[in-house]
């Protein structure tokens, strides 16, 4: 006699209270359903924490840009949240120890992030330009995600209270030369609708910052790299930079570390 044939009979019997006495009247043989457990999907609490909060911080760029007037450049992000609601922190800038510790291009954003499609999230929040120049505050609205071909893309629109608008785009791609040696092209642009002399910015396309970085994933979270970066300022920004004696056209070798936790 096949065991579970008997099992079927026994358990069908168990579902009926009278028959259950054959075994034991203890609660262990109760059906497992009562008025309370009928109410919800998880009567004693959620069995699956599928809304767990996760947290990460990462530096895509943490590098020294070598040459005349060398400086440290960082571009980092952090997020905390569950699948649908995240708080996103972004920070980038340059620190120039040679030039009295001057900080430039300081752009710090605190955003609420929500996925809207398979590959893209919308982000909304505030941006603060905080460095050695005048401080500016913006409202931010953007998208971030994975474009076709596994390009990581970000595009954010900004509006300040005195009627300035700005746009920033960033794109990067990981080209795996081997399982651990990765060549990453990266391209950032900044656009402004109005001149802002306090920050040395003209109207129109202000600047591009592009890089080609060759990293080695010793681990996924610890990947030193070498590369070359090219920074170019345009239009009004170019003129203002020239007046201040800055470089408008700058190619540099760089050495850095891509890291996250």
């Amino acid at each position, binding site marked *: 006699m096949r065991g579970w044939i008997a099992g*079927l009979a026994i*358990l069908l019997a168990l579902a009926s209270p009278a028959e259950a006495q054959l075994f034991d009247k203890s609660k262990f043989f109760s059906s497992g359903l009562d008025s309370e457990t009928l109410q919800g999907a998880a009567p004693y609490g959620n*069995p699956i924490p599928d809304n767990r909060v996760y947290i990460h911080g990462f530096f895509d760029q943490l590098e020294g840009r070598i040459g005349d007037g060398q400086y440290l450049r960082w571009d980092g992000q952090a997020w905390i949240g569950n699948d649908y609601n995240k708080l996103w922190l972004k920070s980038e800038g340059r620190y120039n120890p040679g030039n009295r510790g001057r900080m430039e291009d300081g752009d710090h954003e605190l955003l609420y992030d929500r996925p809207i499609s398979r590959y893209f999230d919308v982000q909304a929040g505030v941006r603060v330009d905080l460095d050695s120049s005048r401080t500016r505050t913006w409202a931010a609205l953007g998208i971030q995600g994975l474009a076709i071909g596994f390009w990581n893309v970000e595009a954010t629109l900004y509006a300040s209270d005195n009627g300035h608008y700005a746009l920033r785009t960033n794109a990067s791609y990981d080209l*795996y030369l081997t*399982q651990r040696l990765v060549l990453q092209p990266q391209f950032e642009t900044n656009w402004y609708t109005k001149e802002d002399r306090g920050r040395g910015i003209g109207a129109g396309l202000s600047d591009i910052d592009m890089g080609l970085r060759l990293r080695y994933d010793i681990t996924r979270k610890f990947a030193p790299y070498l590369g070359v970066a090219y920074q170019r300022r345009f239009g009004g920004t170019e003129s203002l930079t020239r007046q201040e004696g800055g470089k408008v056209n700058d190619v540099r070798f760089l050495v850095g570390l891509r890291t996250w936790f």
Partner: protein
Amino acid sequence: MRGNRFDLRLDRIRINKSGTETWANAINGIVPGPVLNWREGDVVTINVTNNLPEMTGVHWHGIILPNPMDGVPGLEFPGIMPGETFTYRFPVVQSGTYWYHSHMGYQEQKGVYSALVIDPAGTPLIHADRDYVVVLSDWMDGSPLVVQNNLKHMSDYYKFNRRTLGTFISDVEQSGLRATVKERWNWADMRMDPSGLQEPTGPAFTYLMNGMTSAENWTALFQPGERVRLRFTNTSAQSAYDVSIPGLTMNVVHVHGNDVVPVPVDQFRINVAETYDVIVQPRDGRAYTIFAQNFTRSGFSRGTLAPRPGMSAAIPPFDAAPMRNMADMGMTMMPGEVAASNPDRTRMDGIMPSMHGVTDAEKERRTGYQEKLGLPAVTKALKPGVEQQYVLDHSFDRLDLPGDGLNHLMDKRRILTYADLRSVHPGVDKRQPTKEITLTLTGNMGRFIWGFNGQKFSEVGPIDVTLGERFRLRFVNSTMMTHPIHLHGMWMELENGQGEHRPYLHTISVQPAANVSMLVTPVATGQWPLHCHFLYHFEAGMFRTLRVLPKVA
């Protein structure tokens, strides 16, 4: 441990499995825990004492029992709090090879699992001179929560067999630039990689056989000519294996706790939570390697069958790592579209058998395997979104294919498929199903969100059925992973073309774009989990409740 009364104690201990000392959750001080030996017809009493710093619940996988004894905290009982002892007590109404594990959080990954063998009440159908349990597991040194966290940020964190510039160049040489670019474009459009088969995989794990590494070489003894029963039990959190014993034919005699008509094979795939019992009869007084290579070919465990301790045989090389093509995924492939190739330049057509250099008659036979089944309305209605990466064009009956990376070897080896499984006994419930429940397996790999019908557990209520009701359960896989879907508390009778001798399964490994159906009769009321048994998938939402309601008089 044998008997009908057991005391199990869960403790946090220090352990060294990989060469690094780390923490584990042990049952009675060991990992894996003790193998439990029950007898059909007994009422077993199991006292589980929780000395872990967190709540636990021990689940008896594949066992038919009353709902509050099934051990899923939250759903079926309140869980066992730290310091508490919970007494499980239920009649054993079946026999065969099963396993048990913690159903709370990631405790299973860190050691709370072992095999469960139930002796039949009557005369066993299967005769063996030696009988061994072979517990396959994927040990992890670190914290599983860190792994899940990594996957949420970078879903291919543990993949070190991706396609690179090198494979692009070799594909161009083999197929031409145009075809290669087109193929790469298709994958890029889906933000997927054809080598993305399993996450996490090899680099995250140390593979164990009965708790021993390949170097420790677990050994089963035999005398030449003896019939040896090996009860393979995949207790891994996230690893499927292809098992072979070079030099021996394995007769598959018992699957998921139920006897099947013996199938002689050279190799079989065992997905997470499955059990396969094989009989081997080594004639020579030499050592044979029991080889379990993981699905992504990034790790293996091995043991040895030998007449004396201390012997070993050669460890075979890995088979080629599987790669997928668009057709595997249920996408329409255009004529002339090429599939990915391996670094060794062999064309690897994933699930679809390779048609290159095959006679027309053979093509005919193979395409016969691939009967397009269309899509159920539930699947067809799904749209891509945050929780679902892509929609199928077709689904397939893939029961007679062993799966990725094995299909092209079917001419060279005997490889087990679900279609081969024929239950020794005909099914008990002859009724036709009165309704059909379809679940589409869905997910978004990049976001590492998994679910059914585009929703994760917390977003949707239970599926209601009635006690004793006969229904058909259908799974259509709209992801690129081969998910082992487990239904608690009742059997799934796989409709695999064996008529009334359908194999009774507790877990079904569903290949990408596959469309499989099972007949089910719920035998006990309660909230029964239905979930993917990949730990990192069900913890990310690939979990549902099948609520069995009492019959209304």
